[in-house]
């Protein structure tokens, strides 16, 4: 279809948006002084900042395009994938999150080395990198699909322009830039998604004799209003296939294995802040996000039913979002909403690129480097690695463009690449008996059985739940169930025939030791006496130790003892922990209302003279 959309004003708005985000991201580069800052933002942010940042990461540009397409075709059941994440929250919030936070692993593959061995780490590194770089390629493809209609630039050239634009702020900023640009972009994309819904209702009100909401509801059939798809029909969009592909493999993959998301939680100032971010995200933000990404399709369907001919005839699936936006919005507003699509892409891609470079530096460069390099050199390598990751992602774009739709490309990708990792990480955390030979067999033999399943669909048939086989395409989404079953089967069988791991090796790495992790993290018994926060001013002290010193009175108020862990932040809550440090209580002094900090801590926390600080005991 020839879909020429947008005016010069729209094109101008999109360019202005790109420039603002690049400037915003580059500004926050000053907060990245070490690799820890670059990758984890210094583990200092508040839950609300992490939550909005997760929204921006979770909603990619592919989300707008693919969910609008399915929403147009199937109605409210397009929301399924956003509403099935609660099942794994207990294990995530009280199992995986404390394990990764307190063991201070720099990446998920590093956990595999601690829990198993170096070979397991290498295999996990390879699989996670393929997963994330493929994910980035899908993001580039989606946004390019939308933008090349507006600017008329060839698809691949658009992909390259987008990759260069995101590189500019990421290259200098790292995780702190990512989190703060995501805060900005997360708010923009939620606002513009809801704005589009409002404009759509307005359009329906103007073109029918009913009110907007009434016209919307009455122009959808009962079938389109159901929140879950048909159990096993049609083969390209059915409930049970999507449940296993997204609700199980996708949810576990996203929560437990997406290094980008894990790094968000590791940037939280404490495990409890991470839990708050996770709960708030799944309970409130995901349902809102489902509306944000799908509503263009619902509105489009209602318009097609109520005002025949309003939308272009022969519209392709991937064009629904752009076409509906073009019909319901005015010049300038259209540009703003497309800018939100850019926001979705940039905020997801930047997270994944940052995460990929974290894995390359942490799991490829550091273990292989013959001579030890300092943190500054590693930071430089991280920055250039992020460019390399984008180049590979751009090269992969044509492959994903060969699928019928972005939804199918994404579904195939999830169901194929996540199951071995999902099984390995799950059994690793929750089953002490899972052994090193078993995890390697899961990766190698499990992957081989998965490939067999791609070539011989009859192997997948017993898992198909009656879904029709598509000649030459296999069973698609339900393939995830077969993949999980064969990987888990291999893992369990090999474990039972190999020797258990020594207890000492597993200490602090499985769910059964989670209550010991705080002690391991602190290095001594946690102090859980209830205290309160204190407000103080800072003074410098000439010290190279990582300690901060409060008055005796304030130590008592916080119920703190020398050697306990403390979190000190700027008292302006809206900064979300941007200006803050973690440290250890030193010997108390007699000067009330004053905390003594070192020059290095001042630089790291970026504290401002005469601005008060709030200190809280951590443990």
């Amino acid at each position: 279809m020839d879909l020429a959309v947008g005016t010069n004003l729209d094109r101008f708005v999109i360019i202005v948006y790109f420039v603002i985000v690049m400037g915003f991201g580059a500004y926050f580069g000053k907060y990245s002084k070490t690799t820890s800052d670059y990758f984890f933002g210094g583990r200092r942010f508040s839950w609300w900042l992490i939550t909005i940042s997760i929204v921006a990461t979770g909603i990619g540009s592919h989300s707008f395009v693919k969910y609008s397409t399915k929403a147009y075709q199937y109605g409210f059941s397009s929301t399924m994938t956003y509403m099935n994440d609660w099942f794994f929250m207990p294990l995530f919030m009280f199992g995986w999150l404390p394990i990764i936070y307190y063991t201070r692993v720099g990446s998920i593959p590093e956990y595999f080395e601690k829990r198993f061995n170096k070979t397991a780490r290498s295999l996990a590194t390879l699989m996670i990198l393929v997963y994330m770089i493929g994910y980035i390629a899908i993001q580039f493809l989606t946004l390019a699909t939308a933008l090349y209609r507006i600017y008329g630039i060839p698809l691949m050239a658009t992909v390259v322009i987008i990759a260069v634009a995101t590189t500019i702020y990421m290259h200098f900023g790292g995780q702190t830039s990512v989190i703060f640009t995501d805060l900005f972009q997360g708010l923009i994309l939620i606002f513009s998604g809801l704005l589009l819904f409002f404009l759509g209702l307005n359009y329906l009100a103007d073109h029918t004799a009913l009110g907007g909401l009434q016209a919307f509801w009455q122009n959808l059939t009962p079938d389109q209003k159901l929140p879950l798809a048909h159990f096993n029909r049609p083969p390209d969009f059915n409930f049970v296939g999507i449940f296993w592909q997204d609700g199980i493999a996708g949810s576990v993959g996203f929560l437990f294995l997406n290094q980008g998301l894990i790094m968000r939680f590791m940037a939280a100032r404490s495990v409890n802040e991470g839990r708050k971010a996770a709960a708030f995200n799944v309970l409130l933000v995901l349902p809102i996000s489902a509306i944000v990404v799908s509503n263009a399709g619902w509105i489009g369907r209602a318009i097609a039913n109520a005002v025949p001919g309003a939308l272009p005839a022969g519209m392709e699936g991937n064009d629904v979002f752009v076409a509906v936006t073009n019909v319901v919005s005015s010049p300038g507003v259209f540009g703003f909403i497309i800018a939100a699509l850019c926001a979705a892409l940039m905020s997801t891609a930047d997270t994944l690129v940052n995460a990929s470079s974290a894995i390359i530096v942490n799991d490829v460069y550091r273990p292989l480097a013959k001579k030890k390099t300092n943190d500054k050199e590693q930071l430089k390598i991280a920055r250039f690695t992020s460019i390399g990751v984008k180049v590979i992602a751009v090269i992969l774009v044509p492959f994903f463009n060969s699928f019928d739709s972005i939804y199918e490309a994404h579904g195939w990708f999830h169901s194929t690449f996540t199951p071995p990792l999902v099984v390995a990480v799950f059994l690793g955390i929750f089953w002490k008996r899972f052994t090193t030979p078993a995890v390697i067999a899961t990766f190698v033999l499990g992957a081989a059985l998965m490939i067999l399943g791609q070539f011989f669909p009859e192997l997948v048939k017993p898992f198909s739940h009656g879904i029709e086989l598509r000649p030459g395409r296999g069973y698609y989404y339900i393939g995830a169930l077969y993949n999980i079953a064969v990987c888990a089967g291999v893992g369990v069988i090999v474990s039972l025939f190999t020797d258990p791991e020594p207890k000492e090796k597993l200490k602090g790495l499985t769910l059964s030791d989670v209550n010991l992790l705080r002690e391991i993290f602190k290095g001594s018994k946690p102090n859980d006496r209830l205290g309160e926060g204190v407000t103080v001013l800072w003074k410098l002290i000439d010290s190279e130790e990582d300690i901060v010193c409060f008055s005796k009175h304030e130590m008592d108020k916080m119920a703190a003892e020398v050697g306990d862990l403390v979190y000190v932040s700027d008292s302006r809550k809206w900064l979300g922990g941007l200006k803050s440090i973690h440290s250890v209580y030193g010997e108390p002094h007699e000067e009330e209302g004053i905390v003594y900090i070192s020059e290095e801590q001042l630089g790291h926390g970026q504290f401002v003279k005469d601005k008060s600080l709030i200190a809280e005991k951590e443990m």
Partner: protein
Amino acid sequence: MLDFSRTWLPFLYLYGVGGIAFIVGMILILRTKALNKEIAHHRIWLKVLYFGFGFYITLHAVFILLALGIS
């Protein structure tokens, strides 16, 4: 036609199979004391976890009823 496979079967499967994953998770974190009911803020989290499960069941059920025109 809106038969059982289109309306309530996906709902029952979602909260049946998903429910098993949720319950197994709850049992594991309670047994290992990863969620320790003796700690005050963990008790709040316990309620949040149950609430979240109930919230999504209710949300999906209400939408199915609304779609079927049953109020």
